[in-house]
């Protein structure tokens, strides 16, 4: 471990705010991208399923 204590890990010298906000933003962006990919896939499948069922009724 490069830090002696947990608070030191959070503060990171004096630039903790920069490091943590950079990591926070990136993780958020990747999470949103992953969620969007999942939600889009589910939506495509659901829309197609509805369409095929409508076709069957007709």
């Amino acid at each position: 471990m490069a830090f002696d204590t947990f608070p030191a890990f959070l503060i990171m010298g004096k630039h903790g705010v920069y490091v943590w906000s950079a990591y926070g933003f990136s993780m958020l962006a990747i999470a949103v991208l992953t969620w969007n990919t999942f939600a889009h896939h589910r939506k495509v499948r659901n829309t197609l399923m509805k369409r095929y069922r409508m076709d069957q009724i007709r």
Partner: protein
Amino acid sequence: MRWVWFHKLGSPKWFFFQSKSWVLPLLGLGSIGLIVGLVWGLAFAPADYQQGDTFRIIYIHVPAAMLAQSCYFALGAAGFVYLVWQMKMAPIFIKAIAPIGAVMALIALVTGAIWGKPTWGTWWIWDARLTSVLVLFFLYMGIIALQSAFDDVMLANKATAVVCVVGLINLPIIKYSVVWWNTLHQGATFSLAEKPAMSAEMWLPLLVSVVGFYLFIAGLVLWRMQSEILQREHRSSWVKKEVMDRGL
């Protein structure tokens, strides 16, 4: 030379069933690489002697910037393949990878700005490297917008492919911007031919993080391609069977 694989690659059905089992393993391995690389970089790598702990931003900034460029290279190659061979899979790939590349470029820009403030004293400066990466981001946005700007799918495919290929010119500009112009941004720290100038304790976590990013993004690209194939091929009987079987 056997070109069978190339022709098979052009078939959305073949691709769909081949890539289906790849998505989860890629996402899983990628997440492990990301978590290991980032925790290692954040907590265990030694602090830089000049920048202190601020340099830890490198473990996301560099992989994101590499991916933003790699994704665009793939986009340009796909555009070329579409223009020459009209391969059906090319626009599907372009549609899937463009938003991912855009997010990677955005991460590179934002983490770069956050890194710039404490080290250069400014969030942003209009120098060659930063501006060319901003152009890359706008290229991605333009391609995303262009795909839905036409009612005619063939026309949309073609126009998008042309922009993808033309935009390739930006890649060498990004790469050599730090050499050709006098920029604030430092030159490349790593090259394939030489031993890294950084200590192994610092570049090993970076390597793990880069590999993690690539695997994770590959999983996401395949997943988005799956959605796109289902949507575009919805009139095929195999898509109907696939959708109905899974849902029941």
